[in-house]
């Protein structure tokens, strides 16, 4: 759900400057907070398929549109980047359509285009994701190409150098993008001695240091069958899918060779860091420790976040910062329960003269939520939205596949689908108040601001809370 009312840009000049750049959009934020939850149990039948070779996947058959969508994930991600090779997983994600088997980069991409096959890769801190879509009529040929990409990528010298140049260019742009600088600084500040504090896109130095051998080594260690989850939606039956799974993933090693990543938490005590940049509007990222996906209180925290800053125009942050004061176009928060640390993150952008006021209002909203909590009405409204909007996440093949992969990556069973709405309904006001009091301590807030903020230390006016 875009949280914002858009002026669709007539031509996003910046958006397509670099083909590798992954757009961190509101859509992605929405996925980040929503991917693990939910389901419209009605009508959708999830089959658990096991291939003859023993590879498992979840399947939803949908024969009315002649395409097959597959999402898969290898646990690992950018936290598996070696110490001096930050950005390796991200580099690899850009290399898998740059030639494989007998096909050079150009041949591979032309073949892909002939087949109208869609294939892309991305990395998060804890996983490496693949996204594959094919027209039914080209499925057999597309699957061959996918298999080649995953098992026999070439990493030819000229292709590696070309992508390296693009990644370095992306870094130059990212260094000048206040949103990206603020987010990067947030993780560096919150996790100074942990892989989470490093940049998933690396540094100029680390990108320059990465070799074809590094890419292949990462692939070998991370692409395996025991850390792999797969979701498939579309015009394919279970038997055919079984054969396809063996063809694509059958040659991968049984076990991944992952480096152990320590459990961690954001630094205690809170901090506020300003990074100066000559822009008219300051961008702030704020966040603090939250709770893990498997914590019994997770669902409560999820509903809490919805009321606080996850619910678009229904959220308290939007109400106080935008609707009442006109201080920002966009302000939001979301939960990011990673494997090795959980955080609640948010962002706001306000002209330099008033960013201090926005941050003051946000602190007051947190404070009020921690001490008083939401009203019964706010909780009811949040539940109504979360339960009622549940089906909207399942109306395209690609969206269904993403949801089903998300559940598997968190080790949930397909029955989660049946139970999810009941879990939302079960959250009580007392639960919310307890979890809010525990989590939302403004003194622990880690804030990074990019811009030329004024009056940042000054106290902001107190916030009068509406009950919703």
């Amino acid at each position, binding site marked *: 759900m875009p949280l914002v*009312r858009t*002026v*669709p*840009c*007539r*031509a*996003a*000049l*910046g958006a*397509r*400057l*670099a083909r590798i750049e992954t757009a961190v959009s509101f859509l992605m934020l929405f996925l980040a907070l929503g991917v693990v939850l939910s389901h*419209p149990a009605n009508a959708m039948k999830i089959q658990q398929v096991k291939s003859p070779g023993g590879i498992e996947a979840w399947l939803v058959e949908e024969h*009315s*549109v*002649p395409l097959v969508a597959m999402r898969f994930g290898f646990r690992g991600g950018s936290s598996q980047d070696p110490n001096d090779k930050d950005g390796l997983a991200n580099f690899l994600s850009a290399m898998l359509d740059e030639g494989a088997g007998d096909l050079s980069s*150009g041949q591979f991409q*032309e073949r892909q*285009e*002939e087949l*109208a096959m869609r294939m892309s890769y991305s990395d998060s801190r804890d996983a490496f994701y693949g996204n594959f879509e094919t*027209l039914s009529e080209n499925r057999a040929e597309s699957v061959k190409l996918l298999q080649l990409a995953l098992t026999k990528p070439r990493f030819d010298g000229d292709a590696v150098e*070309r992508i390296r140049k693009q990644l370095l*260019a992306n870094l*130059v742009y990212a*260094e*000048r993008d206040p949103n990206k600088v603020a987010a990067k600084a947030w993780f560096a500040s919150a996790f100074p001695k942990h892989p989470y504090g490093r940049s998933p896109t690396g540094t*100029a130095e680390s990108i320059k240091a990465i070799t074809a051998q590094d890419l292949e080594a990462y692939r070998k260690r991370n692409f395996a069958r025991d850390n792999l989850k797969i979701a498939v939606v579309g015009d394919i039956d279970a038997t055919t899918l079984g054969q396809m799974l063996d063809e694509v993933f059958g040659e991968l090693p049984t076990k991944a060779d992952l480096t152990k990543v320590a459990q961690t938490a954001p630094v205690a005590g809170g*901090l*506020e*860091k*300003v*990074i*100066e*940049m*000559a*822009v*008219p*509007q300051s*961008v702030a990222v704020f966040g603090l420790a939250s709770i893990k996906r498997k914590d019994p209180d997770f669902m409560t925290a999820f509903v809490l976040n919805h009321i606080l800053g996850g619910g678009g*125009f*229904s959220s308290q942050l939007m109400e106080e910062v935008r*609707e009442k004061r*006109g*201080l*920002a176009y*966009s302000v939001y928060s979301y939960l990011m329960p990673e494997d090795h640390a959980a955080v609640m993150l948010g962002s706001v*952008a306000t*002209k330099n003269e008033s960013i201090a006021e926005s941050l003051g209002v946000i602190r007051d909203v947190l404070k009020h939520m921690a001490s008083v909590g939401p009203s019964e009405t706010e909780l009811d*409204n949040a539940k*109504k*939205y979360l*339960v*009622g*909007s549940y*089906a*909207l996440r399942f*109306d395209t093949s*690609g969206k269904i596949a993403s949801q089903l992969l998300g559940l598997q990556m968190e080790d949930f069973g397909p029955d989660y689908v049946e139970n999810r709405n009941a879990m939302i309904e079960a959250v009580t006001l007392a639960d919310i108040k307890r979890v809010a009091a525990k989590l939302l301590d403004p003194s622990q807030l880690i804030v990074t601001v*990019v811009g030329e903020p004024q009056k940042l230390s000054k106290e902001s006016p107190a916030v009068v809370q509406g009950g919703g």
Partner: protein
Amino acid sequence: MLHNGLRRFSTLVIALMTLALSPQTFAADDATRLSQFKLENGMEVLVIPDHRAPVVTHMVFYRVGAADEPVGESGIAHFLEHLMFKSTDTIPSGEFSKIIARLGGQDNAFTTQDATAYFQRVAKEQLPRMMELEADRMVNLQLTDKEVQTERDVILEERRSRIDNSPAALFGEQMDAVLYQNHPYRIPVIGWEHEMAQLSRQDALTFYKHYYAPNNAILVVAGDVTADEVKALAEKTYGKLKPVEGITNNRFRPKEPPARAPRRLKLEDPRAGQPSIHRAYLVPSYCTAEKGEAEALDLLVKLLADGTTSRFYKKAVVEDRIASSANGYYDSSGLDSGKIAFYAVAQHKEDLPKIEALLDGLIADITKNGVSESELKRAKSAYIADYIYESDSQATLARRYGWGLATGRTIEDMQAWPDRIRKVTSDDIKRVAAKYLDLRASVTGMLVPKERATASDGPAPAAAPKSRS
């Protein structure tokens, strides 16, 4: 791909599928997919059934956009779009989106040069309520000065977020301002800041009363519904509204004079990142082109510059290595004209002229020699496949067809698109390249970092962010 897909509107799913696949599999189902009718008050309705999930996308398009704004009131179309979420006679201030959220729905809106659209995505049971709400705010909007003032601050912040904080976006505004010499497409949709700051409650209401009416609106419902259901509901809600006299489909905008001279501009900005070169041409759109020309332009841009298999990428990035990326697109959906743009990012400022010469050479080659059959075939199949992929999303279909209707196209015309794409020949591409990629109708722009970088790929010293804690 998405970019192109969203900008071109055309064609029915059925037409695509019969083109690419065995027709018997899908034709029976899809033949019934689209229904179009008109309410008595002149409101157009389009229904796109999709019964896979129990949800619907409900959209209302108004045939008005930023290019219809009064002189000096840039941004009013978009500002009004924001204000439409405030209050009506029966909806208290700011409650609109909250009501929809309580019903488990998501809502939003967008403004472009040629149309303004509002949409909700909800469980099918909530469709009647969505229609009531949308019909209500079509005629009953109430605005207070306080709401207007606060929201004006919001759109100014929106402008800072989207435009002022980004050198690429500021540069894009400058390119458009120069490309169009007389047509209002030269003015950004969000508005110029100094004019936005002056927009008033009265400006918004005047614009609203003039353009928001059933006879200037198109309803699109996609999802788990039938045409009969939608018709009955629409008659009970939108059907009760009175048409406004004096609205016509012939929208008058100032026309472009003949373009007589290539234009050039350069923006230096400390935050520009790497040097980049941009070339934009004023060309026809699907709405204005002679039959088959827009299709030929589509394929021309696809194989010349869209993606890693294109000539521009292969030559500039892969072979000559003077650019780190090279791309192009055809903005083909405008009511009054289209735009073709190419751009590339270089590591060194000195390479920009080389890239420009290379691009000019590639264009000259096509105008002289046309394109190969294999390239043409690949480009055609890529486009046709995009449409099958898009048919997976009811929201995408609603947007595509709604936009087409809002800019005066017919379903039949959109349906014929795949056939016309199929018919494009190498000669057609050669001809439109020669006719429209004419430098006199172009702007060439450079966006470069203000200080020369010291290291080959390092940031300019003055632009590097400084830390202060």
